[in-house]
């Protein structure tokens, strides 16, 4: 087997050195009843070529995003990832190293985590960020839990504009932690009064910007109201590129930002792995979940990096830890950092403008299709359309016509009839003006057929 260096002769020699007759003698502690003799009922070993054939056949059964006009978003966005990103993250020194527990052997990882933390803090307008969490949805649940710790309160208010998966993860966690969640109904394009739900027991209010339906809102006033009530404002961002164009959560007064960082450096990957971003104010740093890289000096006084404030974490604090999290999204965070380094201030601004301009072009063109209405007043690179028919059927039909037209909101809310006609459409720099034209034409054709 190509991945196993021991030869049969090695094994014989080593068993002799160990002083046993056979490998079975090293498994003596396994109870007889549990010893599996013979092989499990699975295929035998395969060479590279055979494995490649088998998996390529599976991959070929999927419609890849790059092969068609593509408009899906809803918390995962198809952006162009520069070639250098994927090349650099596959360097073995990054790919095949572990958590930097021995800092003298991991200055590379620690320095990029420090750079990542700085980039995330700058983008979100916050003071500090951690070294990443699993994804945006779990980061959101961690934010709710942290707000509870910081305020010693047990109730949180969730906006109806929050991504339904984020809301669902918060609800799942809360069932077990005993926190109360007050969740608003989804209302695409509409406003909501969250403050009526806030009282002296409220730990935080969770909103999303742009919200799940793409609407951009100013939460400055909400932040002030929350603070007057002793509650924290958590702002979720699922399209981190939007912060290249719009005002940051920090500037609006957010206390915690929980975000999805997939848009920078990370492919769609059918939903994961992605990279959860988590940023907050300096005063809450000891309440944060997850790893933190920090600056220090070595024995010769030179600047260097270590993991720090570990006394918050499970490997030190065990059941008293701020979170049970151990792993971060290391390599995805690296991809994020490299992509954002290539963009820089100018590239980020330019890419955000390009996304917005293409989205405006698409929104205007699609809203001109008879029977189609744009729901949003404002948006960045994703907006909601109201169709004259259930969106799920239209999306399936357009997929047959070779266009992946977006995400029907009914996929998240199958029981809400009032949302059945709503379609989310995301437009990134990977979309061409021809793609938009083809989408509009096929949509018009399909609607003409169903409305006939």
């Amino acid at each position, binding site marked *: 087997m190509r991945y196993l260096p021991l030869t049969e002769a090695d*094994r014989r020699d080593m068993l002799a050195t160990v002083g046993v007759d056979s490998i079975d003698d090293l498994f003596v502690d396994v109870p007889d009843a549990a010893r599996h003799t013979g092989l499990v009922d699975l295929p035998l070993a395969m060479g590279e070529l055979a494995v490649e054939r088998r998996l390529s056949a599976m991959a070929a059964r999927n419609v890849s995003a790059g092969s068609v006009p593509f408009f899906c978003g809803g918390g995962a966005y198809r952006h162009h990832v520069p070639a250098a990103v994927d090349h650099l993250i596959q360097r073995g020194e990054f790919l095949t190293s*572990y958590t*930097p527990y021995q800092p003298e052997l991991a200055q590379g990882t620690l320095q990029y985590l420090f750079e990542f933390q700085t980039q995330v803090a700058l983008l979100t307008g916050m003071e500090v960020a951690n070294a990443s969490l699993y994804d945006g949805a779990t980061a959101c649940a961690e934010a709710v839990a942290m707000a509870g710790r910081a305020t010693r309160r047990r109730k949180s208010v969730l906006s109806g504009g929050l991504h339904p998966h984020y809301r669902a993860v918060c609800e799942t966690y809360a069932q077990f932690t005993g926190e109360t969640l007050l969740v608003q109904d989804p209302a695409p394009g509409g406003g909501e009064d969250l403050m009526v739900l806030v009282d002296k027991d409220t730990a935080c209010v969770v909103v999303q910007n742009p919200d799940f339906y793409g609407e951009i809102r100013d939460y400055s006033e909400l932040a002030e109201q929350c603070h007057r009530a002793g509650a924290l404002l958590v702002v979720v961002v699922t399209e981190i590129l939007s*912060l290249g164009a719009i005002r940051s959560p920090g500037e609006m007064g957010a206390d915690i930002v929980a975000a999805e960082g997939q848009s920078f450096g990370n492919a769609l990957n059918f939903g994961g792995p992605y990279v959860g971003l988590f940023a907050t104010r300096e005063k809450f740093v000891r309440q944060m979940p997850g790893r933190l890289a920090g600056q220090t000096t070595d024995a010769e006084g030179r600047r260097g990096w270590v993991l720090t404030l570990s006394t918050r974490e499970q490997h030190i604090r065990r059941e008293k830890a701020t979170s*049970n999290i151990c792993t971060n999204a290391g390599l995805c965070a690296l991809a994020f950092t490299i992509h954002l380094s290539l963009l820089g201030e100018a590239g980020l601004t330019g890419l955000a403008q390009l996304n917005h301009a293409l989205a405006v072009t698409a929104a205007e063109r699609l809203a001109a299709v008879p029977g189609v209405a744009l729901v949003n007043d404002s948006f960045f690179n994703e907006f909601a359309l109201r169709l004259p028919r259930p969106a799920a059927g239209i999306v399936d039909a357009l997929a047959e016509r070779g266009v992946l037209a977006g995400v029907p909101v009914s996929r998240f809310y199958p029981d809400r009839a009032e949302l059945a006609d709503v379609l989310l459409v995301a437009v990134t720099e990977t979309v061409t003006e021809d793609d938009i034209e083809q989408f509009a034409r096929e949509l018009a054709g399909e609607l003409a057929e169903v409305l006939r």
Partner: protein
Amino acid sequence: MSEWSQALRAVGKNGGAGVATISGNRALQIEEPLLFEQDSPGHCGIDLPEPPPVKSRLGGLERRGAIGLPGLSEPQVVRHFTRLSQKNYAIDSGMYPLGSCTMKHNPRLNEKMARLPGFGDVHPLQPVQTVQGALELIDTLAHWLKTLTGMPAVALSPAAGAHGELCGIMTIRAALEARGNPRRRILVPESAHGTNPATAAACGYTVEAIPADATGRVDTAALKGALGPDVAALMLTNPNTCGLFERDIIEIAEAVHAAGAFFYCDGANFNAIVGRVRPAELGIDALHINLHKTFSTPHGGGGPGSGPVVLAAELAAFAPVPWIVHAENGFALVESETGVAADAIGRLKGFHGQMGMFVRALTYMMSHGADGLRQVAEDAVLNANYLRVLLQDVMSVSFPGTCMHEVLFDDRFLRDSGVTTLDFAKAMIDEGFHPMTMYFPLVVHGALLIEPTETESKASLDQFATVLRGLIGRIKAGDTASFAAAPQLTPRRRLDETGAARKPVLRWRPEPVHQAAAE
């Protein structure tokens, strides 16, 4: 003799630690400032087209000031990250015997497969008829995991081992609630990973630690004594973090079940038994599998991981969504707690789990096959025992007898030498090895936990043992000053972790503009 030639002679003796250079660089070790210290304002490493002219629809919430990101060209960025990479140790560069972390070779075929456009460039919310191959891959992975563990169900969405624990304990709690009483306590052996008690606490349980016995295994009598009608579950790692198989595991499972509790197993060390022992036959009700340990998906400097949880029939109904089900015309996704998934605990993660890791793990499993995976466990166990025997006369093995995939030493062999476990580990760094896991598990003093994995050759193990024996020889000869000073040959010497925590600097900030300069 000139100063330079004296310095060169010194290189031969101490490897060059004493040579000063003009640049501060040392050959392949090149100093690299932060990105933020290399800013060419306005510069960019990506060329973008002009956007079409449109009227802004940002609702008047345009960004007002600069963010403060540095501008760099592509060559600067490539060089920056290449230099950073050269400051890392990796399994690609040498033996990385971190106990309980399973640093094995990461096959590159895994990477190639995960990047096929049909897997990498597929959106999680595309219509299901356009992602049948992706669902087939997940379903195939589920089949392999269920077959290898003998368990009837698997929840695939957990993002890492600790997330899998959360999934398992939530599922157990839901099953107990369905019976009418979630109960209050979870029993966790002292040798467990920190994530176990943290998980139990996150699910609203009180944690009770169970001591180890003299053989390094859970004290069965103490465990039985702690069981009671308010115990929800036992969380046991097997093989445990001392590298030992829990001999009484079937008896323990029976006692746990007799008390009406569930048996959760931390599967971090499944690599020791894969293909030889099926957890279902040990009486386990739920077990997470770290795909990044047993099934070789890369650790990536700390993630991403993936932690599927196999479940007994009694827990299966509570598995979180999404579920993949076989429907009339192919695979379908159940994404909310309805229909067959009506009893699901909810959702643990956005979308469908760590697909990129699923592709890599399945690639690895298919490469090894049923025969190769069994050989993986056997070679991992043989390698650990081989090291145990090569080192047991000079180091102090914590518990007698054969071990599984890792061998635990404690610091008795360093007693009265003035050298600590930490010093010993740092000295290994100068010898070109990543140290073993230090000070874990907590059940022995100054733990040194060595896990070579099956992907080390005999020559590599021999060299490792020779180096450790040499270091111990140096200690015996009284040459201990070099241990306190180690490492000396790394890009940085020992780093001040206490200082870092006392006054945390967690991000770069621009140098404050000097008062005089501003005036």
